[in-house]
Protein backbone atom coordinates (compact mmCIF):
# COMPACT_ATOMS: atom_id res chain seq x y z
CA UNK A 1 0.00 0.00 0.00
CA UNK A 2 1.41 3.33 -1.10
CA UNK A 3 1.09 5.55 1.97
CA UNK A 4 2.24 8.58 0.07
CA UNK A 5 -0.58 8.12 -2.43
CA UNK A 6 -3.12 7.81 0.38
CA UNK A 7 -1.76 10.94 2.02
CA UNK A 8 -2.17 12.82 -1.26
CA UNK A 9 -5.77 11.62 -1.50
CA UNK A 10 -6.45 13.10 1.96
CA UNK A 11 -4.75 16.38 1.09
CA UNK A 12 -6.56 16.70 -2.25
CA UNK A 13 -10.03 15.51 -1.24
CA UNK A 14 -10.20 17.34 2.07
CA UNK A 15 -8.13 20.33 1.02
CA UNK A 16 -5.96 20.22 4.15
CA UNK A 17 -2.23 20.67 4.77
CA UNK A 18 0.05 17.67 4.37
CA UNK A 19 1.36 18.23 7.92
CA UNK A 20 -2.12 17.59 9.32
CA UNK A 21 -2.32 14.12 7.84
CA UNK A 22 -1.13 12.00 10.76
CA UNK A 23 -2.38 8.59 11.93
CA UNK A 24 -4.54 10.16 14.63
CA UNK A 25 -6.27 12.62 12.27
CA UNK A 26 -9.92 11.89 13.00
CA UNK A 27 -13.22 12.31 11.17
CA UNK A 28 -15.23 15.18 12.56
CA UNK A 29 -12.32 16.85 14.37
CA UNK A 30 -11.38 19.18 11.51
CA UNK A 31 -14.07 21.08 9.67
CA UNK A 32 -12.91 19.82 6.27
CA UNK A 33 -13.43 16.17 7.21
CA UNK A 34 -17.19 16.18 7.71
CA UNK A 35 -19.74 13.93 6.00
CA UNK A 36 -19.43 15.78 2.69
CA UNK A 37 -15.64 15.69 2.86
CA UNK A 38 -15.80 12.01 3.68
CA UNK A 39 -17.68 11.15 0.47
CA UNK A 40 -15.14 13.15 -1.55
CA UNK A 41 -12.34 11.33 0.24
CA UNK A 42 -13.81 7.91 -0.48
CA UNK A 43 -14.22 8.75 -4.19
CA UNK A 44 -10.65 10.01 -4.36
CA UNK A 45 -9.25 6.90 -2.68
CA UNK A 46 -11.31 4.55 -4.86
CA UNK A 47 -10.17 6.34 -8.00
CA UNK A 48 -6.48 6.46 -7.07
CA UNK A 49 -6.23 2.90 -5.80
CA UNK A 50 -8.73 1.41 -8.24
CA UNK A 51 -10.72 -0.28 -5.48
CA UNK A 52 -14.37 -0.30 -4.37
CA UNK A 53 -14.88 0.08 -0.66
CA UNK A 54 -17.89 -1.54 1.07
CA UNK A 55 -20.34 0.49 3.15
CA UNK A 56 -19.08 -0.86 6.49
CA UNK A 57 -15.52 0.18 5.69
CA UNK A 58 -16.65 3.62 4.52
CA UNK A 59 -18.12 4.04 7.99
CA UNK A 60 -15.16 2.45 9.80
CA UNK A 61 -12.63 4.72 8.08
CA UNK A 62 -12.61 7.40 10.76
CA UNK A 63 -8.88 8.10 11.15
CA UNK A 64 -5.95 8.28 8.76
CA UNK A 65 -4.49 5.28 10.58
CA UNK A 66 -7.65 3.24 9.99
CA UNK A 67 -7.70 4.38 6.37
CA UNK A 68 -4.22 2.88 5.89
CA UNK A 69 -5.39 -0.51 7.22
CA UNK A 70 -8.58 -0.51 5.18
CA UNK A 71 -6.98 0.54 1.91
CA UNK A 72 -4.24 -2.04 2.48
CA UNK A 73 -6.89 -4.74 2.90
CA UNK A 74 -8.51 -3.86 -0.42
CA UNK A 75 -5.21 -3.40 -2.24
CA UNK A 76 -4.09 -6.86 -1.11
CA UNK A 77 -7.29 -8.34 -2.54
CA UNK A 78 -6.59 -6.88 -5.96
Amino acid sequence: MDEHKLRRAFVDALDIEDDNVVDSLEYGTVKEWDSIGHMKLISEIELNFDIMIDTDDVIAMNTFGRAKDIVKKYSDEN
Partner: protein
Amino acid sequence: MIEEYFLHRPFSLTASEKGKQFLDRLIVLHRHHSERCSEYRNIYKAFGRQKTLPRDDTDFIPLPVRLFKTLTLKSVNPEDVQKTLTSSGTTSQNVSHIYLDKETSRLQTKVLAHIINDYIGTKRLPMLIIDTEDVIKDRQLFSARGGGILGFSTFGRNHLYLFDSEMNIKVNELKGFCDRFKEQPVLLFGFTFLIWKYFVEVLKANNQSVSLPHGILIHSGGWKKLKDDAVDNETFKTAIRGTTGIQSVYNFYGMVEQLGSIFMECERGFFHTCLFNNIVIRNWKTLKVCQKGEEGIIEVQSVIPWSYPGHVLITEDLGVLIGEDNCECGRKGKYFVVNGRIPVAELRGCSDTFQHTG
Protein backbone atom coordinates in the same frame (compact mmCIF):
# COMPACT_ATOMS: atom_id res chain seq x y z
CA MET B 1 -23.57 -3.39 25.25
CA ILE B 2 -24.88 -1.63 22.21
CA GLU B 3 -22.18 -3.17 19.99
CA GLU B 4 -23.75 -6.61 20.50
CA TYR B 5 -26.78 -5.48 18.52
CA PHE B 6 -24.74 -5.49 15.35
CA LEU B 7 -24.06 -9.22 15.66
CA HIS B 8 -27.66 -9.87 14.66
CA ARG B 9 -29.41 -9.06 11.42
CA PRO B 10 -31.75 -6.12 12.06
CA PHE B 11 -35.03 -7.96 11.46
CA SER B 12 -34.04 -11.36 12.81
CA LEU B 13 -35.16 -11.34 16.45
CA THR B 14 -38.62 -12.10 17.85
CA ALA B 15 -40.21 -10.08 20.64
CA SER B 16 -38.97 -12.46 23.35
CA GLU B 17 -35.43 -12.51 21.91
CA LYS B 18 -35.26 -8.74 21.57
CA GLY B 19 -37.25 -7.65 24.62
CA LYS B 20 -34.90 -7.67 27.60
CA GLN B 21 -31.87 -6.33 25.76
CA PHE B 22 -33.97 -3.54 24.30
CA LEU B 23 -35.50 -2.57 27.64
CA ASP B 24 -32.08 -2.66 29.32
CA ARG B 25 -30.76 -0.20 26.78
CA LEU B 26 -33.76 2.13 27.23
CA ILE B 27 -33.15 2.03 30.98
CA VAL B 28 -29.47 2.91 30.46
CA LEU B 29 -30.60 5.89 28.37
CA HIS B 30 -33.26 6.82 30.93
CA ARG B 31 -30.71 6.88 33.77
CA HIS B 32 -28.27 8.91 31.69
CA HIS B 33 -30.85 11.52 30.65
CA SER B 34 -32.30 11.71 34.17
CA GLU B 35 -28.84 12.50 35.44
CA ARG B 36 -27.74 14.90 32.74
CA CYS B 37 -30.85 16.68 31.46
CA SER B 38 -32.82 18.67 34.03
CA GLU B 39 -35.83 19.11 31.74
CA TYR B 40 -36.09 15.34 31.30
CA ARG B 41 -35.70 14.78 35.04
CA ASN B 42 -38.38 17.36 35.79
CA ILE B 43 -40.91 15.66 33.56
CA TYR B 44 -40.54 12.41 35.49
CA LYS B 45 -40.62 14.38 38.72
CA ALA B 46 -43.86 16.13 37.73
CA PHE B 47 -45.46 12.72 37.35
CA GLY B 48 -43.99 11.53 40.65
CA ARG B 49 -41.84 9.08 38.77
CA GLN B 50 -38.32 10.23 39.69
CA LYS B 51 -37.63 7.36 42.10
CA THR B 52 -38.88 4.32 40.19
CA LEU B 53 -37.52 2.92 36.97
CA PRO B 54 -39.88 2.14 34.07
CA ARG B 55 -41.09 -1.46 34.35
CA ASP B 56 -41.42 -2.26 30.66
CA ASP B 57 -41.20 -0.60 27.28
CA THR B 58 -44.69 0.91 27.59
CA ASP B 59 -43.88 2.50 30.96
CA PHE B 60 -41.70 5.42 29.85
CA ILE B 61 -43.11 8.93 29.69
CA PRO B 62 -42.88 9.78 25.99
CA LEU B 63 -41.66 13.31 25.26
CA PRO B 64 -43.76 15.14 22.64
CA VAL B 65 -41.67 15.80 19.53
CA ARG B 66 -42.60 19.46 19.57
CA LEU B 67 -40.76 19.85 22.89
CA PHE B 68 -37.56 19.92 20.83
CA LYS B 69 -38.81 23.16 19.30
CA THR B 70 -39.39 24.97 22.55
CA LEU B 71 -36.77 23.56 24.91
CA THR B 72 -33.03 23.03 24.75
CA LEU B 73 -32.87 19.32 25.42
CA LYS B 74 -29.30 18.19 25.84
CA SER B 75 -27.62 15.50 27.94
CA VAL B 76 -23.95 16.19 27.24
CA ASN B 77 -21.59 19.08 27.92
CA PRO B 78 -21.84 21.94 25.40
CA GLU B 79 -18.25 21.33 24.25
CA ASP B 80 -19.15 17.76 23.31
CA VAL B 81 -21.86 18.84 20.86
CA GLN B 82 -20.39 18.15 17.44
CA LYS B 83 -23.27 19.36 15.33
CA THR B 84 -26.79 20.65 15.72
CA LEU B 85 -29.42 19.27 13.45
CA THR B 86 -32.45 21.38 12.65
CA SER B 87 -35.69 20.39 11.00
CA SER B 88 -35.86 22.32 7.75
CA GLY B 89 -38.54 24.68 8.90
CA THR B 90 -39.49 27.94 7.30
CA THR B 91 -39.65 31.30 9.04
CA SER B 92 -43.29 30.89 9.96
CA GLN B 93 -42.63 27.72 11.91
CA ASN B 94 -40.56 26.82 14.90
CA VAL B 95 -37.54 24.66 14.27
CA SER B 96 -36.43 21.62 16.24
CA HIS B 97 -32.88 21.54 17.52
CA ILE B 98 -31.19 18.19 17.98
CA TYR B 99 -27.76 18.25 19.59
CA LEU B 100 -25.44 15.49 18.45
CA ASP B 101 -22.20 14.35 20.04
CA LYS B 102 -19.66 12.07 18.43
CA GLU B 103 -21.09 8.85 19.87
CA THR B 104 -24.69 9.62 18.89
CA SER B 105 -23.64 10.53 15.33
CA ARG B 106 -21.56 7.37 15.09
CA LEU B 107 -24.47 5.21 16.22
CA GLN B 108 -26.89 6.91 13.81
CA THR B 109 -24.63 6.11 10.88
CA LYS B 110 -23.94 2.56 12.00
CA VAL B 111 -27.56 1.69 12.74
CA LEU B 112 -28.79 3.14 9.46
CA ALA B 113 -26.16 1.14 7.58
CA HIS B 114 -27.11 -2.04 9.41
CA ILE B 115 -30.75 -1.61 8.41
CA ILE B 116 -30.15 -0.51 4.81
CA ASN B 117 -27.52 -3.18 4.14
CA ASP B 118 -30.21 -5.73 4.92
CA TYR B 119 -32.17 -4.36 1.96
CA ILE B 120 -29.49 -3.53 -0.60
CA GLY B 121 -26.38 -5.48 0.43
CA THR B 122 -22.99 -4.24 1.61
CA LYS B 123 -21.71 -3.15 -1.81
CA ARG B 124 -22.22 0.52 -2.51
CA LEU B 125 -24.40 1.18 -5.55
CA PRO B 126 -24.39 3.92 -8.18
CA MET B 127 -26.72 6.49 -6.66
CA LEU B 128 -29.23 8.96 -7.97
CA ILE B 129 -30.22 11.55 -5.38
CA ILE B 130 -33.62 12.95 -6.25
CA ASP B 131 -32.94 16.43 -4.97
CA THR B 132 -30.72 19.43 -5.60
CA GLU B 133 -27.15 19.58 -4.36
CA ASP B 134 -27.96 23.02 -2.93
CA VAL B 135 -29.46 21.44 0.19
CA ILE B 136 -26.06 20.16 1.32
CA LYS B 137 -23.98 23.13 0.19
CA ASP B 138 -24.29 25.15 3.36
CA ARG B 139 -22.35 23.00 5.79
CA GLN B 140 -23.26 25.15 8.75
CA LEU B 141 -26.97 24.91 8.20
CA PHE B 142 -27.48 21.21 8.58
CA SER B 143 -31.12 20.54 7.77
CA ALA B 144 -32.98 17.28 8.16
CA ARG B 145 -33.31 17.13 4.40
CA GLY B 146 -29.59 17.54 3.86
CA GLY B 147 -28.85 15.22 6.75
CA GLY B 148 -30.99 12.50 5.24
CA ILE B 149 -29.25 12.83 1.90
CA LEU B 150 -25.79 12.75 3.42
CA GLY B 151 -26.73 9.81 5.61
CA PHE B 152 -27.83 7.79 2.62
CA SER B 153 -24.92 8.92 0.43
CA THR B 154 -22.80 6.40 2.32
CA PHE B 155 -24.61 3.61 0.47
CA GLY B 156 -23.86 5.06 -2.94
CA ARG B 157 -21.06 5.89 -5.33
CA ASN B 158 -20.98 7.91 -8.56
CA HIS B 159 -23.59 10.14 -6.92
CA LEU B 160 -25.75 12.23 -9.21
CA TYR B 161 -28.06 14.96 -7.94
CA LEU B 162 -31.08 14.87 -10.22
CA PHE B 163 -32.20 18.50 -9.92
CA ASP B 164 -30.52 21.82 -10.59
CA SER B 165 -31.01 24.76 -8.22
CA GLU B 166 -34.46 25.45 -9.68
CA MET B 167 -35.55 21.82 -9.12
CA ASN B 168 -35.46 21.07 -12.84
CA ILE B 169 -34.37 17.62 -13.95
CA LYS B 170 -30.82 17.59 -15.29
CA VAL B 171 -31.92 15.74 -18.39
CA ASN B 172 -28.56 14.99 -20.01
CA GLU B 173 -26.91 13.86 -16.79
CA LEU B 174 -29.89 11.63 -16.04
CA LYS B 175 -29.71 10.05 -19.46
CA GLY B 176 -25.98 9.45 -19.03
CA PHE B 177 -26.57 7.85 -15.62
CA CYS B 178 -29.30 5.55 -16.92
CA ASP B 179 -27.29 4.49 -19.97
CA ARG B 180 -24.24 3.74 -17.90
CA PHE B 181 -25.92 1.82 -15.08
CA LYS B 182 -29.09 0.35 -16.58
CA GLU B 183 -27.78 -3.21 -16.38
CA GLN B 184 -26.99 -3.17 -12.67
CA PRO B 185 -28.62 -2.35 -9.33
CA VAL B 186 -28.69 1.36 -8.58
CA LEU B 187 -29.88 3.20 -5.51
CA LEU B 188 -32.28 6.13 -5.67
CA PHE B 189 -33.03 8.26 -2.65
CA GLY B 190 -35.27 11.24 -2.05
CA PHE B 191 -38.22 12.73 -0.26
CA THR B 192 -41.63 11.46 -1.31
CA PHE B 193 -43.25 14.79 -2.13
CA LEU B 194 -40.26 16.09 -4.11
CA ILE B 195 -39.98 12.83 -6.07
CA TRP B 196 -43.64 13.07 -6.96
CA LYS B 197 -43.81 16.74 -7.81
CA TYR B 198 -40.49 17.34 -9.56
CA PHE B 199 -39.72 13.94 -11.04
CA VAL B 200 -42.76 11.68 -11.59
CA GLU B 201 -45.24 14.41 -12.49
CA VAL B 202 -42.76 16.15 -14.77
CA LEU B 203 -41.99 12.92 -16.61
CA LYS B 204 -45.70 12.19 -16.93
CA ALA B 205 -46.57 15.68 -18.12
CA ASN B 206 -43.91 15.47 -20.81
CA ASN B 207 -44.80 11.93 -21.72
CA GLN B 208 -41.26 10.83 -20.88
CA SER B 209 -39.83 7.84 -19.11
CA VAL B 210 -36.46 6.53 -18.03
CA SER B 211 -35.28 2.97 -17.68
CA LEU B 212 -33.78 1.79 -14.41
CA PRO B 213 -35.19 -1.73 -14.15
CA HIS B 214 -32.75 -2.72 -11.38
CA GLY B 215 -33.24 0.45 -9.40
CA ILE B 216 -34.05 0.43 -5.69
CA LEU B 217 -35.87 3.55 -4.55
CA ILE B 218 -35.88 4.46 -0.87
CA HIS B 219 -37.98 7.46 0.09
CA SER B 220 -39.52 9.20 3.07
CA GLY B 221 -41.02 12.46 4.23
CA GLY B 222 -44.73 12.06 4.67
CA TRP B 223 -47.84 12.00 2.54
CA LYS B 224 -49.68 15.00 3.83
CA LYS B 225 -49.11 17.17 0.78
CA LEU B 226 -49.77 14.28 -1.59
CA LYS B 227 -53.10 13.45 -0.02
CA ASP B 228 -54.62 16.56 -1.61
CA ASP B 229 -53.76 15.06 -4.99
CA ALA B 230 -55.14 11.69 -3.84
CA VAL B 231 -51.71 10.10 -4.12
CA ASP B 232 -51.25 7.18 -1.76
CA ASN B 233 -48.47 4.61 -1.51
CA GLU B 234 -49.93 2.34 -4.20
CA THR B 235 -50.50 5.20 -6.65
CA PHE B 236 -46.95 6.35 -6.00
CA LYS B 237 -45.44 2.91 -6.62
CA THR B 238 -47.46 2.37 -9.78
CA ALA B 239 -46.42 5.75 -11.16
CA ILE B 240 -42.76 5.08 -10.32
CA ARG B 241 -42.89 1.74 -12.12
CA GLY B 242 -44.59 3.33 -15.12
CA THR B 243 -42.16 6.20 -15.50
CA THR B 244 -38.85 4.62 -14.44
CA GLY B 245 -39.25 0.84 -14.53
CA ILE B 246 -38.16 0.65 -10.91
CA GLN B 247 -39.75 -2.37 -9.19
CA SER B 248 -38.29 -2.05 -5.69
CA VAL B 249 -39.77 0.94 -3.90
CA TYR B 250 -39.43 1.26 -0.14
CA ASN B 251 -40.94 4.01 1.95
CA PHE B 252 -39.63 4.57 5.44
CA TYR B 253 -41.01 6.22 8.52
CA GLY B 254 -38.71 8.07 10.85
CA MET B 255 -38.23 11.12 12.98
CA VAL B 256 -35.54 13.75 12.67
CA GLU B 257 -35.36 13.32 16.45
CA GLN B 258 -34.40 9.68 15.94
CA LEU B 259 -32.20 9.78 12.86
CA GLY B 260 -30.71 6.38 12.02
CA SER B 261 -33.25 4.03 13.58
CA ILE B 262 -35.80 4.21 10.78
CA PHE B 263 -38.85 2.01 10.22
CA MET B 264 -38.50 0.46 6.77
CA GLU B 265 -41.39 -0.63 4.61
CA CYS B 266 -41.49 -4.28 3.59
CA GLU B 267 -42.65 -5.92 0.37
CA ARG B 268 -46.14 -6.27 1.90
CA GLY B 269 -46.39 -2.52 2.40
CA PHE B 270 -45.97 -2.43 6.19
CA PHE B 271 -43.45 -0.49 8.25
CA HIS B 272 -41.26 -2.68 10.48
CA THR B 273 -39.55 -2.23 13.80
CA CYS B 274 -36.09 -3.76 14.12
CA LEU B 275 -33.49 -4.39 16.83
CA PHE B 276 -32.86 -0.70 17.30
CA ASN B 277 -36.36 0.68 17.58
CA ASN B 278 -39.87 0.02 18.76
CA ILE B 279 -43.34 1.52 18.57
CA VAL B 280 -46.24 1.72 20.99
CA ILE B 281 -49.65 2.79 19.68
CA ARG B 282 -51.56 4.85 22.24
CA ASN B 283 -55.17 5.97 22.45
CA TRP B 284 -55.04 9.66 21.62
CA LYS B 285 -57.29 10.72 24.46
CA THR B 286 -56.23 8.42 27.30
CA LEU B 287 -52.70 7.52 26.09
CA LYS B 288 -53.46 3.92 27.08
CA VAL B 289 -51.79 1.28 24.93
CA CYS B 290 -53.99 0.32 21.97
CA GLN B 291 -54.82 -3.20 20.92
CA LYS B 292 -53.65 -4.63 17.63
CA GLY B 293 -55.80 -3.18 14.86
CA GLU B 294 -56.84 -0.13 16.86
CA GLU B 295 -55.79 3.31 15.62
CA GLY B 296 -53.86 5.59 17.94
CA ILE B 297 -50.94 7.98 18.26
CA ILE B 298 -47.56 6.50 17.45
CA GLU B 299 -44.91 6.48 20.18
CA VAL B 300 -41.45 5.81 18.78
CA GLN B 301 -38.50 4.39 20.70
CA SER B 302 -34.86 4.25 19.70
CA VAL B 303 -31.69 2.89 21.30
CA ILE B 304 -29.57 5.65 19.75
CA PRO B 305 -30.16 9.06 21.39
CA TRP B 306 -27.44 9.66 23.97
CA SER B 307 -26.67 13.36 23.64
CA TYR B 308 -30.34 14.38 23.85
CA PRO B 309 -33.36 12.68 25.50
CA GLY B 310 -34.98 11.42 22.30
CA HIS B 311 -35.17 7.70 23.07
CA VAL B 312 -38.95 7.67 23.80
CA LEU B 313 -41.09 10.18 21.89
CA ILE B 314 -44.75 10.66 21.18
CA THR B 315 -45.26 11.70 17.56
CA GLU B 316 -48.14 13.61 16.00
CA ASP B 317 -48.93 10.71 13.69
CA LEU B 318 -51.74 8.19 13.80
CA GLY B 319 -51.03 4.55 13.14
CA VAL B 320 -52.22 1.00 13.60
CA LEU B 321 -50.25 -1.99 14.81
CA ILE B 322 -51.00 -4.84 12.41
CA GLY B 323 -49.05 -7.64 14.06
CA GLU B 324 -45.75 -8.82 15.49
CA ASP B 325 -43.15 -11.36 14.33
CA ASN B 326 -45.42 -12.91 11.70
CA CYS B 327 -45.40 -10.59 8.69
CA GLU B 328 -45.57 -12.50 5.41
CA CYS B 329 -42.38 -10.75 4.27
CA GLY B 330 -40.47 -12.89 6.77
CA ARG B 331 -39.08 -10.09 8.91
CA LYS B 332 -39.53 -10.28 12.67
CA GLY B 333 -40.66 -7.36 14.80
CA LYS B 334 -43.81 -5.29 14.94
CA TYR B 335 -45.36 -4.19 11.67
CA PHE B 336 -47.68 -1.25 11.31
CA VAL B 337 -49.25 1.37 9.08
CA VAL B 338 -49.20 5.15 9.41
CA ASN B 339 -52.52 6.86 8.73
CA GLY B 340 -51.43 10.50 8.78
CA ARG B 341 -51.27 13.33 11.24
CA ILE B 342 -53.51 13.93 14.19
CA PRO B 343 -55.81 16.74 13.03
CA VAL B 344 -54.43 19.45 15.28
CA ALA B 345 -50.79 18.88 14.34
CA GLU B 346 -49.02 21.64 12.51
CA LEU B 347 -47.37 21.03 9.17
CA ARG B 348 -44.07 19.30 9.76
CA GLY B 349 -41.77 16.72 8.20
CA CYS B 350 -38.62 16.72 6.14
CA SER B 351 -40.05 17.31 2.71
CA ASP B 352 -43.39 18.65 3.85
CA THR B 353 -41.52 21.71 5.00
CA PHE B 354 -40.21 22.35 1.51
CA GLN B 355 -42.70 25.05 0.77
CA HIS B 356 -43.26 26.93 -2.39
CA THR B 357 -42.87 30.67 -2.33
CA GLY B 358 -44.53 32.66 -5.05
